[in-house]
């Protein structure tokens, strides 16, 4: 079947190529449109709940905005107050850095250690895996409340037990020196999700590789290091 014009005359080769290109472009746009249509729920959510708030937060940080009167441009004034006049900002930054530097590596090391131990266990692997993972399922608020109860300096079971041993337990969450380590304890308790990721990775390595590494003289750390 040959291409023909409306009048029945055959189209020249150049016009035929242009038409094909147009059709291909049209089809490509249609495909893109379809992709966008399928992606639109995510795109709408991303724009409304992430992109717009992000851009507006950045813009409003250069404004004086009390939420009731319209925003007023103030340049860097808010940042000047934040870093040079607010007495609590640097304390918050220091505490955040402390938690990142101490808690994050500890969580990773602890989760990895648990994962390696689980691969070595001969019996009850399923039970141990469940026990170590379960805390990750506890809602953070409930877990925190439970820890506040357990570590209560007077009525909490930890200090009561320490008291029976003749030791006055610390003020876990009330003492600035103890509160961050206590939070680290809470963080370590809930490493189940990270542990599962490590466990999957460790189990993915064929046993033969471990054996050959051992034969090559790799020590335990070298064999299991990620």
């Amino acid at each position, binding site marked *: 079947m040959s291409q023909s014009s409306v009048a029945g005359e055959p189209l020249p080769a150049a016009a035929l190529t242009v038409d094909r290109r147009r059709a291909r472009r049209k089809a490509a746009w249609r495909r893109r449109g379809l992709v966008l249509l399928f992606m639109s729920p995510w795109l709408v959510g991303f724009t409304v709940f992430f992109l717009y708030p992000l851009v507006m937060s950045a813009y409003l940080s250069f404004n004086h905005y009390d939420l*009731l*009167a319209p925003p007023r441009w103030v340049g860097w004034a808010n940042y000047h107050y934040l870093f040079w006049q607010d007495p609590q900002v640097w304390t918050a930054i220091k505490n955040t850095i402390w938690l990142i530097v101490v808690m994050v590596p500890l969580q990773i090391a602890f989760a990895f250690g648990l994962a390696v131990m689980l691969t070595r266990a001969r019996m009850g692997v399923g039970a141990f895996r469940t026990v170590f993972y379960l805390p990750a399922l506890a809602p953070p608020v409930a877990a925190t409340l439970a820890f506040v109860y357990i570590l209560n300096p*007077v009525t909490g079971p930890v200090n009561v037990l320490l008291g029976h041993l003749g030791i006055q337990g610390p003020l876990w969450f009330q003492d*600035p020196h103890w509160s961050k380590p206590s939070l680290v304890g809470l963080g370590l308790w809930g490493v189940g999700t990270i542990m599962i990721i490590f466990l999957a990775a460790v189990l993915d390595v064929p046993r033969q590789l471990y054996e050959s590494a051992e034969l090559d003289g790799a020590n335990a750390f070298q064999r299991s290091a990620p």
Partner: protein
Amino acid sequence: MRRVGTAFAVLAALALLAAGAAMSSPRATPEAKTAPTKLTLWVGWSARELSVFKQVVAEYDKKNPNVTVDVVGSINDNKIVAAIRAGTAPDVVSSFNSYNVGVYCGTGGWINLAPLMAKDHISASMFPAATQYYTQYNGVRCALPLLADTYGLYYNKTLFKAAGITSPPKTMSELAADAKKLTVRNSNGTIKVAGIDPVIGFYENVPERWITSYGGKWQDAKGNSILSKDPAWTKWLTWQKSLVDWFGYNNLVRFQAGLGDEFSSSNAFEAGKVAMNLDGEWRVAFIQAEHPNLNYATAPMPVDDAHPELYGSGYINGTIIGIPKNGKHTAEAWDLVRYLTTNSHALAELSNGLRNVPTTKASAVSPEIKPDAHFATFIKIFTNPKSTTSPITAAGVAYTNLVQHFATQWQAGQVKNLHSGLVSLDKQLDALVHQAKGPGVP
């Protein structure tokens, strides 16, 4: 025939009169036919307290058939601000935080009530000075007081008797001495019963409620912070630290960790774990409901030894009510606000039900207020002309929070030099207010 003519003339005159009467009261007939205006009122109260409030509003509803009021409870300041911003605010709003009046009046979020008050010949002088102050900001009165919270000393008479103390302390020296006498320690030195817990942050212990006992000033005439310049602050903080150190800061923290929640029946004063406590008038109702057999009494807070004339005064703050901007029924909303804040009967009913202090001078002496010796103490403190409140600034509650933050560091021994610490705090407070107003605003 003449009679018939006269009769027609009389009938015609009567018909004209009737028509005239109907025309002269055009609102009567249409209003009776149109639906009443629906007002929405947001309040912070919930549960039992909300039903008490609704009963009083129902009385207003009954007296005013032209409106129906829908009361919505459990409202906080975040919801109020969000609704004003979104243009969906109700006709009338009420907030528990008189601290935030600066925010509402300063931004125009709540309308200025002064013209409405002037039109109805209502003077702010019908309220005590402290409540007049905390319902305005920079001369803009955008709120009126709707019941007040007044603070005083609660003391356990049984523990007082056991310690051989016959009357409540009236000076800070007496308070410290009595607190030491009333304190009972365990064999390991920890606290079993505290005479008083002076730690800032414990229950109702915040700086603004203690500094009243010293007559401390917050700001100068220009609005600059003067905490380092007014010796009252140094005096109070020194007294407080000295008492904290006598107990041992860690001992007090440990003691507090074992106490019940403030708003529960395990409250430390109600449970006999603290012999004296700074608290608000509402505690009377809590004790009545939770520990009716508790042998206690109330008194004004003790005052600085050098200022005995302050005895009888105290700290006041309370619930405020106003009309958000862009409301559709301002006249009706104002009528409701006026009724709730100035009608002695309504205030007495609310006070009896909620056991908060009624806010006009007239309602404070209303015969409708249920007599109660414990509660009467707080009405006296409320009407004392020396009673004060905290400063109303553009920063809202953040202003007093910053002072509290300093006090908590001080009591924990983290402030090396009190004077230089207060100088630094003054600068921080001024910067905070400047920041809240925005650059370029005096």
